[in-house]
């Protein structure tokens, strides 16, 4: 969605970084959410055991996925739900379009589904003349702004309330210069209520699909998925193959972890369990692969399929917080997105595993214990081996190899570096050196460590 294929993470981050005040706000706000997550997690003595249990359940799911998918399908069909399978984004979008046509509808109300972002569903349906309205407040805002979401839980975290007021002024007819969140939310409530009441077809995502019972669970705070689903005649639910949990009781583990990790709430306001359609109405589930089975086959990276989309890794990430979600130019941003995206297109997303300090904070907060930073590191090896590293980086690495393998060269280079910082800082602090963007110069030390050691030993 509005992707900028020619711009890599660093370039897009630079654009985001032009507004320093906004970057600071973004950084601090996401850190505040990370702190709320910590507070919620620390209230449960069993937190670490829960993470371990969730991780083991998801490992079990991945290792028995074929059986679970068949079991889920059987039970869902027995419950009166129609099940469809899509190998890729194109097939998924075609199925959705066909189902809308079959319902003789031309309009769709949609609740949050990162999968449909991944599939580019909105653009596809627009080309087919289907009107799509996103009903999650944050998603509606970015939709009006013609932008993709920048965060999977907080889609418009990059927007200021004044900009949202301006959007609502332009599109929803409120007066100019209103920025009160209460007023703006009420405006969206009125606008979307009339949408919910007039749409015959709704599309939602799926948080969890239970193999044992054939039911699926959708979690929201706003209630938008329920407003759409219970008023429409046709409910389409799109899910990736990895959304399965084996038994209903396992939901207990995941619902305890999900929102505490995401926002620090003990649970979302609504955790709705859909088992059968309403009398005379229809529920369709579309089970989507779109590269997931390939990822399942990559031993080092299959763990990424355990993700429950809480976004804790984004909120804690020092790079995400300061570069913004759009800099990742993919539907799922941040650390988890950076290990999912190269699976879909190695060349296009070769920059993302490098958009990390490898500090490991993402892995520490992940509720299902995905080794995110280790996978980022492993992706770098794979990308370089496959020839996807930038030319400059390759050349630099070669120079570093020569320098670090020769003590004479190493000492000479150190001396030259210290002299340059002291006497000719402009040679380093210039626009050709990305390390000096948004950074102050460090003072150059008078001595190298080895010179200091020689004098003081």
């Amino acid at each position: 969605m509005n992707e900028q294929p020619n711009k890599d993470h660093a370039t897009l981050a630079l654009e985001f970084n032009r507004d320093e005040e906004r970057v600071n706000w973004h950084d601090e706000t996401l850190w505040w959410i990370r702190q709320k997550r910590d507070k919620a997690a620390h209230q449960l003595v069993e937190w670490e055991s829960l993470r371990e249990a969730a991780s083991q359940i998801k490992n079990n799911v991945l290792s028995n996925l074929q059986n679970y998918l068949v079991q889920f399908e059987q039970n869902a069909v027995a419950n009166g739900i129609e099940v469809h399978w899509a190998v890729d984004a194109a097939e998924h979008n075609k199925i959705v379009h066909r189902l809308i046509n079959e319902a003789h509808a031309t309009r769709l109300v949609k609740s949050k589904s990162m999968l449909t972002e991944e599939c580019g569903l909105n653009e596809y349906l627009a080309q087919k003349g289907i009107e799509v309205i996103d009903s999650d407040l944050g998603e509606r805002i970015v939709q009006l702004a013609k932008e993709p979401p920048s965060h999977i839980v907080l889609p418009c975290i990059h927007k200021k309330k004044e900009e949202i007021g301006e959007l609502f002024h332009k599109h929803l007819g409120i007066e100019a210069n209103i920025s009160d969140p209460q007023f703006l939310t009420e405006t969206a409530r009125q606008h979307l209520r009339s949408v919910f009441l007039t749409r015959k077809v709704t599309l939602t995502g799926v948080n969890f699909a239970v193999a044992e019972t054939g039911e699926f669970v959708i979690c929201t705070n706003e209630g938008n998925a329920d407003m759409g689903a219970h008023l429409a005649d046709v409910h389409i639910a799109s899910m990736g193959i990895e959304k399965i949990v084996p038994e209903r009781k396992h939901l207990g583990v995941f619902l305890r972890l999900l929102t505490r990790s995401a926002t620090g709430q003990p649970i979302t306001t609504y955790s709705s369990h859909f088992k059968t359609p309403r009398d005379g109405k229809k529920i369709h589930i579309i089970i989507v692969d779109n590269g997931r089975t390939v990822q399942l086959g990559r031993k080092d990276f299959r763990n990424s399929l355990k993700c429950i989309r809480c976004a804790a890794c984004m909120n804690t990430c020092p790079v995400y917080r300061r570069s913004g979600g759009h800099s990742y130019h993919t539907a799922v941003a941040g650390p988890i997105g950076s290990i999912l995206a190269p699976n879909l297109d190695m060349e296009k997303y070769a920059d993302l595993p490098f958009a990390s300090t490898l500090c490991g904070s993402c892995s520490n907060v992940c509720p299902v214990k995905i080794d995110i930073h280790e996978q980022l590191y492993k992706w770098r090896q794979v990308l370089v081996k496959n020839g996807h590293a930038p030319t400059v980086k390759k050349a630099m690495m070669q120079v570093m190899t020569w320098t670090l393998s020769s003590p004479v060269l190493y000492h000479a280079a150190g001396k030259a570096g210290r002299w340059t910082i002291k006497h000719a800082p402009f040679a380093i602090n210039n626009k050709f050196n990305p390390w000096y963007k948004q950074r102050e110069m460090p003072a150059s030390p008078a001595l190298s460590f080895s010179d200091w050691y020689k004098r003081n030993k």
Partner: protein
Amino acid sequence: MRSRETILSAVKANQPANTGLPDISIFEKRVKGSAHKFATTLKSVGGKIFYVTDYEEISRILLKQYGKEMRIVSPIIELRDIRSDNPDTLDSIHQLQDVELAVLKAHFGIAENGAVWITEDYMQYRILPFITQHLAVVIHADDIVPTMHEAYELISKATYGFGTFIAGPSKTADIEQSLVIGAHGPRSMTVFIINNNNAEEESRR
């Protein structure tokens, strides 16, 4: 159906060796849930709590709050005197769009997160707890469990077409992380805890 076979055979070819499921029964507390903890948690997510002794008291409180002008809908037979109309006779669920207050029973509450579990048979219409401007829920003090694990233990025996955990009024913080109550669903959620034994003691805490 070709896509189904393609996906399933790709899954089979790529899935790792079988690993077992963990024992999650270790998380069950095997004690009663605390009404006090439930109430505190629900209040922290924007809900309201009343300890009452019976439905008569609930009727009195609701009438005082909402008066007789507002449209009140409830499938609870004990509350038939305060409900505005009988929703059994709706032509379309869209007629619920101007409901001011819906009063529903819940099966139980959960102390750790302030949620109540309501299934379709207690809602009358699936849309009712979402489309109403305000929601009130009735539970018994004995029906409070400590965590989600005991909740699913109770649910495991149940059959339902639709069921939901509701924890507080609908809300959003999508605009600059400012919490706003009343996103698309109810603008308030009140839970009445019926406690015939120690209502006074609980309410004084």
